[in-house]
């Protein structure tokens, strides 16, 4: 017989109280809330998502593909009837399709190069910081030296020597962008390794690499995410400059830098060839900079 002892009522009251109890907020939720309250960052995230989606899906929706030549429409300003929404270039190729393809390329380079630089920087910095002493001094001295060198020269030399393949471009840029990441991660590791849970792991018999990868790295997510968002625009700029010099992505593939380098000399007569890629590039960089700042404020409220 239910209800005789009032057990059910007690239990359901208890369950209700549990369900309505004030919820604890995790650090991630806190950070998310702060990010959502940051209007500039939120709008930037929406614009970025829109750009990424459009760059990935857009080419399938357009009447022209990026390397298709429209013999009837060479060097034409925007024409909605023919489907050249941003005009055509000197070879009669649709500028919107080319810009989308270029955006895609710039985004891929940025993603891969950032991933490379994050992996190298995090592993290098964590090892230097964890082992400390002479290892640390030596490893960070190397970073200091690399910092002083003009890395763009080495990227150019590498690209010239080993051919102009996009893969090399990704890896080459990523390989030279990890220095700041290594410094930040090392600093954080130095403080983290003094904490009790590391001592506990040591006492439990964990080896140094287990400690680094299982116990230290997960605690570095915040700074790594922040710095990665700040690295992306830098890499986009580097890639577009290399492409601007003719060292990056090769025809018929294109990137925003390549498009700008072709658009700039003819901008007086065919302004749409410069302004379309330039606008997308600047819009992406502005948004990324706001998102980076917003993430920093959200994840690291001390550091305002």
């Amino acid at each position, binding site marked *: 017989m239910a209800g005789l002892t009032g057990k059910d009522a007690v239990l359901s009251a208890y369950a209700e109280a549990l369900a309505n109890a004030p919820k604890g907020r995790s650090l991630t939720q806190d950070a998310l809330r702060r990010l959502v309250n940051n209007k500039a960052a939120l709008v930037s995230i929406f614009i970025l998502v829109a750009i990424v989606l459009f760059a990935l899906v857009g080419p399938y929706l357009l009447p022209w593909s990026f390397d298709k030549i429209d013999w009837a429409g060479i060097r034409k300003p925007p024409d909605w009837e023919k489907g050249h929404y941003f005009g055509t270039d000197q070879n009669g190729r649709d500028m919107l399709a080319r810009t989308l393809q270029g955006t895609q390329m710039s985004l891929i380079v940025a993603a891969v190069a950032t991933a490379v630089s994050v992996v190298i920087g995090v592993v290098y910095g964590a090892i230097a910081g964890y082992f400390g002493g002479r290892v640390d001094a030596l490893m960070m001295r190397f970073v200091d030296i690399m910092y002083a060198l003009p890395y763009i*020269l080495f990227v150019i*030399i590498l690209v010239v*020597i080993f051919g102009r393949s996009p893969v090399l471009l990704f890896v080459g840029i990523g390989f030279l962008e990890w220095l700041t990441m290594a410094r930040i991660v090392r600093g954080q590791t130095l403080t983290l390794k003094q904490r009790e849970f590391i001592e506990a792991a040591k006492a439990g018999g964990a080896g140094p690499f287990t400690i680094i990868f299982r116990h230290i790295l997960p605690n570095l997510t915040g700074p790594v995410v922040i710095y990665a968002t700040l690295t992306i625009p830098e890499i986009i700029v580097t890639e577009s400059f290399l492409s601007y010099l003719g060292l990056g992505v090769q025809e018929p593939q294109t990137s925003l830098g390549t498009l*700008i380098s072709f658009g700039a000399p003819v901008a*007086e007569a065919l302004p749409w060839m*410069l302004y379309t890629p330039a606008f997308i*590039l*600047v819009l992406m960089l502005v948004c990324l*900079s706001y998102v980076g700042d917003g993430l920093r404020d959200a994840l690291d409220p001390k550091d305002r």
Partner: protein
Amino acid sequence: MLGYALRRVLSAIPIVFITIAVCFFILRLAPGGPFDGERALPPDVLRNLREYYNLDKPLPLQFVDYILGVLRGDFGPSMVMRDFSVARLISIGLPFTLMLGFAAFAIGTAAGLIAGALAAFYQNKWPDYLLVFVVLIPLVIPNFLMANLAQLVFGVYLRWLPVGGYQPGAILNLVMPVLILSMPHGARVARLTRGSMIEVLGTNYVRTARSKGLGTRLILARHAIKPALIPVVSYLGPGLSYLLTGSLVVEQVFALPGIGKYFITAALNRDYGLVLGTTILYVFIILALNLLVDIVYAWLDPKVRYR
């Protein structure tokens, strides 16, 4: 202090040496060369060329020869611009690049310091908001795009300034390149100055100075400036290398005869001699300037010891 400077100079020597070695071997081991043309050269001609350019000896010997040459100030011949030695090309381009770089450095640093200090002084009032916004522009628009847009607006549409090129004495041709080069530098300096100035103006010793009746101007000049400059000065080292890299962009876009332009042309033509020479020069300049910045830093910040 002198010992500190001397030790820093000595520690820079192996860095220059290693850079030369790495670049030298990468360039020599790479496939392809400056004599690859549309048509293959006859073997005899190729052999003579290789002999002339000292490419026929074993690699280590070539390296020793090269290092000895560099120590004498002889960077070897340019392999593509065949009437010139690398040292001659550098002596043409270097003064120009240095002039461009230092003009941009001076203008950018001065403007950045003034703007940053003003923004800190009027924190959260309209001059501050205006400056924070203006400073963002050169930081998000890449240098080469900014240069192209400036050429278009001031050179083509308005016709106020020449679009590019340079001849000795043509000051107007330098206005755009110097300003474009100085803008991102000035923006970073302004941001740093604003941040550190706000921090310093909030410290106890500034409050003490204010409470004993010191005027604003005196507080700024006597107490606030020096500590506020510390983060700015520590940025100037990396800032200088940004500037030199930036000069690569600006020289290329405005077709100016500096070493940056030579470097890019040489890299595109696989002119090993010229690439090596210009790279060594860049590394040398940047290390020297970093050293200078470190010494200034040690003078500014009493916490730095001359270890």
